[in-house]
């Protein structure tokens, strides 16, 4: 029963949603709407589950004085601080348990939650994303080596697109006459992005979509059961 019930639920809900996609008449839209509401409720509860797991893991590491336990303590303190500020004074227009916190806002300029969000969370998040620029540079230096015909073609395309996506592009090829305008870097870049690139992306997208259809069919029919926890 523990294995069969989820399979039955997956089958019934999968088939209903599939049919509801083609039949606009009542009761299918209502059934679909109900399933949608249930999904949203479950998603919301799942957030709590994650936070509980995070707290538990960090508290255990601090209690056992695991290596680098100080960082786990910093994690718990940050979690608690944001939670407390959000609950007590809210954020932006949303009031907290203690109202809109006019006193603190008059000192900080914004609510404490918003202050930490704008001055700590945003810079930290942006810093992590900015690592991408450095890693792209090091990966490009290491891996973009011309070895054969295909890599030659790749290199040429990369040079055109990289230059075409900068503000230097109009300067570098702006002198080309209108009759040969398609040779200008921005036009070449647009052509490469809209035709060869899009064709390749479509091909991968279509084959991935077929993979999704197959995997979904296997899940609906109960052939694929890994989401239940391994095995057949």
């Amino acid at each position: 029963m523990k294995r069969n019930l989820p399979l039955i639920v997956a089958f019934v809900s999968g088939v209903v949603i599939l049919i509801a996609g083609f039949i606009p008449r009542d009761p299918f839209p209502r059934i679909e709407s109900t399933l949608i509401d249930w999904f949203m409720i479950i998603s919301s509860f799942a957030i709590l589950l994650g936070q509980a797991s995070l707290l538990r893991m960090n508290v255990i590491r601090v209690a056992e004085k695991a290596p680098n336990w100080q960082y786990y303590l910093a994690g718990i303190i940050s979690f608690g601080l944001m939670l407390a500020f959000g609950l007590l004074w809210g954020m932006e227009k949303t009031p907290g348990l203690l109202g809109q916190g006019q006193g603190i806002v008059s000192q900080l300029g914004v609510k404490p939650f918003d202050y930490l969000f704008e001055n700590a969370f945003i810079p930290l998040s942006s810093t992590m994303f900015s690592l991408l620029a450095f890693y792209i540079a090091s990966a490009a230096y290491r891996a973009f080596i011309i070895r054969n015909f295909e890599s030659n073609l790749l290199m040429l395309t990369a040079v055109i697109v990289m230059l075409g996506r900068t503000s230097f592009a109009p300067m570098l090829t702006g002198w080309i006459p209108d009759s040969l305008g398609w040779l200008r870097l921005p036009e070449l870049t647009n052509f490469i992005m809209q035709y060869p690139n899009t064709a390749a992306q479509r091909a991968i997208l279509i084959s991935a979509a077929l993979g999704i259809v197959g995997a979904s069919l296997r899940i609906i029919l109960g052939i694929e059961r890994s989401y239940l926890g391994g095995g057949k």
Partner: protein
Amino acid sequence: MKKTLTGLLLALLACVLTAAAEQPAFSVQDNPWDDGTSVLVKWDLATGADSLSLQKADSLGVFQEIFKEFAQTGQYTDSSLEIGKDFRYRLVAYNQARGDSLVYQGSARTKAQWFDMNKLSLLILLVLICGAILYYIFSARRGKDLFIRRISGLDSMDEAIGRATEKGRPILFVPGISDLGDIQTIAALNILSHLAYKSAEYGTELLVPCRFSMVLSAARETVKEAYLKAGKPDAYREDKVFYVTDDQFGFVAGVDGIMLREQPAANFFLGAFWAESLILTETGFGTGAIQTAGTGQPHQIPFFVVSCDYTLIGEELYAASAYISRDPQQLGSLKGHDFGKLLVILLVLAGVVMEIIGAGWFKQFFEGGS
């Protein structure tokens, strides 16, 4: 035969005449292929009109304005209506310069349809592809031998696990950064099941950081089940499959930290990834780990290719479960995918030919007519 041909010709003539017939200036009709809660109002005004007011009669018969954006030719869908009721509309087209106006009236009864004809092409394709998948699954069950080409990224799994065992370092497996609703995550968990089984057999530590709690629950069950199947239930440690954070780059920071501290010998990045993919794989490259990655996101594949030893591209990720297990049913569904690809190729070629010869109906049929 003669009667059939005559009938067909008459029908064709009727179609041509209908198509050539002048479209009315104002029409109100039940919105086709819907749930019966909307009415479609169309207009094609004479030149000279420069503003309009579309009005609907309320329950007392008084017309209230519902739309006033001017367009010479346009349409308006009035939705959230009651099914099976009559609704009256009036369009007043003004000519401000001359100071006069034209009034059009019409009514329609809302009606729910049983089938959305705009999706007929989708249904046909779905039936064909699913039919092919089921056919090959049943063929495989009957013992038919099905060929699948080598996927080096999956063949290398054993090598990666062996290397990690020799070095006494753990294996890191990231099941993507999408939730359990994404098929890529489910495909990743399939592979995790086999990887966990092998890790349990060899006694190698397996670390699985998760971004979402539902993925965490599924991953824990998967790994636990695998350890049980390998006969090593006591070796399973729940804290090795853990939640990091919901935040995308917070998750990346956490996983990067794990890679730099724990120094895994083998990294597996399988599932849905976005902009953070290169940050993960470059950090892993820096630690000297053997890396296998796979995703269905076409725009992240180049980043994986430059920084990983093996990459599963697109559909190979979904084929992984069938490839590793060699389960006939799963291999059968892969053949169904191949049929689907062949069908798409034929349709693309047919579409190109049809467009060249000017038969626009072929493309319109697959566009869905909406």
